[in-house]
């Protein structure tokens, strides 16, 4: 059952990602990205990390993608203009993709701390455990990330603010 669900949502995820690339309308690409986010959340849920799964839905599908859609609506972005593509990409594109993917997987396998895959449901992650880890073991990374986000927010405010001098 778990394996079936994993394959189902993994297929959804990959299908959404491919659809994101081949769609010509911007809004359809954004909707495909929501499908990808949602299926990723369900895969997290299958792994047993329910808190991460719900946060994925709230943050990515519920907040960030809403802003994407908002911007698309505001700009009323139409169809993308497709060029014929470069000849180099036609010849080397797919073999290059395969080679890159294989090298990536090989490097990941070489450096992964465990030589066996993580079983389904092994990442038992209730909210209190995640919080405890964030505020003890990963406190420095957590605080540094928050400062990074703060700087990004300040940058956005500075960019968006109308200049009063002119």
């Amino acid at each position, binding site marked *: 059952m778990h394996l079936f669900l994993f394959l189902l949502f993994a297929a959804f995820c990959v299908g959404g990602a491919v659809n994101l690339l081949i769609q010509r309308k911007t*809004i359809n690409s954004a*909707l495909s990205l*929501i499908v990808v986010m949602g299926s990723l959340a369900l895969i997290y849920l299958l792994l047993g990390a*329910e*808190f991460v799964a*719900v*946060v994925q*839905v*709230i943050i990515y*599908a*519920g*907040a960030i993608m*809403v*802003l994407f*859609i*908002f911007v*698309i*609506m*505001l700009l*009323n972005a139409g169809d993308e203009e497709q060029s014929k593509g470069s000849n180099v990409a036609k010849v080397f594109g797919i073999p290059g993709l395969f080679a890159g993917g294989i090298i990536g997987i090989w490097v990941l396998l070489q450096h992964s701390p465990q030589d066996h895959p993580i079983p389904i449901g092994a990442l038992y992650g*209730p*909210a*209190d455990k995640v919080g405890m880890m964030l505020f003890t073991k990963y406190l420095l990374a957590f605080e540094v990330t928050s400062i990074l986000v703060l700087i990004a927010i300040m940058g956005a405010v500075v960019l968006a603010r109308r200049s009063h001098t002119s």
Partner: protein
Amino acid sequence: MSALTFLIVAVIKIAVTLGVLLTVVAYTVWLERKVVGHMQNRWGPSRVGPFGLLQPLADGIKFLLKEDLTPPYVEKNIYLLAPGLALIMALTSIALVPIGPVIHLFGISTPVQITGVVGPSGQPSDINVGILIVLGITSLGVYGIALAGWSSNSKYSLLGALRASAQMVSYEVSLGLSLVGVLLMSSTLSLSGIVHAQLGTWFGFIPQWYIFKGQFVAFFIYMMAAFAETNRIPFDLPEAETELVAGYHTEYSAMKFAMFFMAEYANMVTVACIASVMFLGGWSGPPLPSFVPSAVQAFMPLVWFSSKIFFFLFLYIWIRGTLPRFRYDQLMAFGWKFLFPLALANVIITAFFVAMQA
């Protein structure tokens, strides 16, 4: 409990809850028309059935039989997807709400909650991130509105949808933060756990609800944000009929319009459920004196819960009959400059007191 019994019980619970929810949605519309009518010194619906009680039925038949037209130049797939998305997201979150305690029927014990089960030790349990799932589903509900407005290819719809998504994203922040105080005090994210944390009483009759335990500011913030989330007056700018015809659902007719309408009222019910679970103790209430027969006592949780929901629905209608609409800049300033700092302050003060007690 075997898998088959579990399945049967789950299906029965879903069917009953969905039936009750849809009936409540239909009769909230009737109640709204009736109450607003009386507030404006007129009768409201009175022709179909006694007191106009069959009006929702007549409306339903009308919506089903009306001509369902799709305007030209709409983005067809998304135009058809949007009302369904809005309604599904509105109806799903009721599954998380604990409506009553554990009941024992025909040798089976189960809590009155779709996602609740009775554990091996006899303790009821539900999803341990329940409230976050409700917030997640609520945050997905905005897609129905945003996509409806965009795909309709109409300036009124687009403006309504832009307003709706900006408003819902802004007020979601205050809404989520207002609940954090309660979560800090109950130290659980499970909705039935939160209800169980409020079961005691002071002096034998004042229930220990979180609204009495110092979260009344949070309750106020929650109610304000909830009115904005459900696009109700005084925050109904997405469908401000004096400027935008009907906002995001201008181009929808017949049953597709009815789906948006039902989604709005179902969202009202969900928001009322969450408010009563988080702040008013859910199905718990002050204990009755012991001479009340046990058959009556067994029904009291349901009575408490439904009367709290009725109170909130009446409050919605009452405020609709009382307040005018905000201006858009006032709405944004109120959300970001007043509710948001207030919610943050509430979180910090609650955290301070919780840390002092620990």
